[in-house]
């Protein structure tokens, strides 16, 4: 009617867990092979559980202190390893050497910078001086000077100038 029992069905039957189905029990009654397996495995299950009491116990206080000691020694080892890599920076000799190198480097840099500055100054003294251009010439130009002069003329002079301009314009038209 049904197939043979599966591995987990046997375990459920032996341990009485997961509410083994009634069909499993009825199968066991009808199937000699599964019944034989079930009986054998059930007795082995009981034998394995009988081995439970054979374990000798250690001294727990000592066990705990050993764990504590090992944790402590490992943390010390870790710190030592870290110091091995970073410790050089805080050793006095290394600190002195680093300070000396720093000061020497700073001195060399200052000397080089001052030297290049002096060279730049000597070069700049040899270059020709360019005359500054007058501001009025740049800003106003020649037309503005003529206009100013015209504005300063008297009425008679302005009249004469106008007549001269008109005669010259007429002459140019006739030509």
């Amino acid at each position, binding site marked *: 009617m049904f197939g043979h029992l599966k591995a987990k069905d*046997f375990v459920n039957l032996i341990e009485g867990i997961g509410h083994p189905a009634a069909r499993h029990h009825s199968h066991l009654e009808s199937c000699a092979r599964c019944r034989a397996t079930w009986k054998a495995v059930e007795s082995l299950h009981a034998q*394995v559980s009988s*081995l439970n009491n*054979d374990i000798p116990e250690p001294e*727990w206080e000592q066990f705990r202190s050993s*764990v504590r000691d090992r*944790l402590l020694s*490992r943390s010390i080892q870790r710190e030592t390893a870290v110091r091995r890599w970073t410790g050089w920076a805080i050793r006095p000799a290394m600190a002195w050497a680093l300070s000396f190198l720093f000061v020497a480097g700073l001195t060399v840099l200052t000397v080089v910078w001052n030297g290049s500055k002096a060279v730049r100054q000597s070069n700049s003294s040899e270059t020709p001086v360019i005359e500054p251009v007058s501001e009025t010439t740049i800003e106003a130009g020649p037309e503005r000077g003529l206009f100013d002069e015209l504005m300063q003329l008297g009425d008679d002079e302005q009249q004469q100038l106008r007549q001269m301009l008109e005669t010259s314009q007429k002459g140019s038209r006739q030509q």
Partner: protein
Amino acid sequence: MERTLAASMPMAARSQDPDIDLVERYFAGETKAFDEIMIRYERQIYRVCYRFVENREDAMDLAQDVFVKAFEHLPTFRRESSLKTWLYRIAINHCLNHVKKHSQEFVEVTEYTGSIRSSVQAEMEHQEQRQRFRKLVKQLPPKQKAILELRINEDLSYEEIARISGRSISTIKASVFFALEKLRKLIKDPTV
């Protein structure tokens, strides 16, 4: 033991998971928390280790390794599983690695204890049968053996074993059955 620990805890802490509370107290630098974690789990972890090596000294060394590892990696404990499951997982993995490394030595030890057993044989027939049976259990594949012992002798639920080993409950049940089947075959023919 767990009852004693629970009684010593403050009322506020009892509401949450006592293991998580212990871990937090340990991180806060409370030295008593270390002892409480140890007291709570030392026996269970030692017993698991003993089942792999069947020797008091080696089991003690293994169990100490497990706790050292656990306390060193406690900051990585993500609290997704219980502390118990986490510790068991470390223990099982550590023991499996140990067995893998020292598999040759185990053969030698087994042979040695076998010769001792022959001298004890006359004294207690029943005792000898148990020893012989234990020897057969020892011949099981390490993972299968671990699952069998965790279930039958350490009385862990299938859910817990599934969480420890990262397998399904059905697989764990099948492992228990196949371990027992293998034992049956070994009894018939120890050379299998």
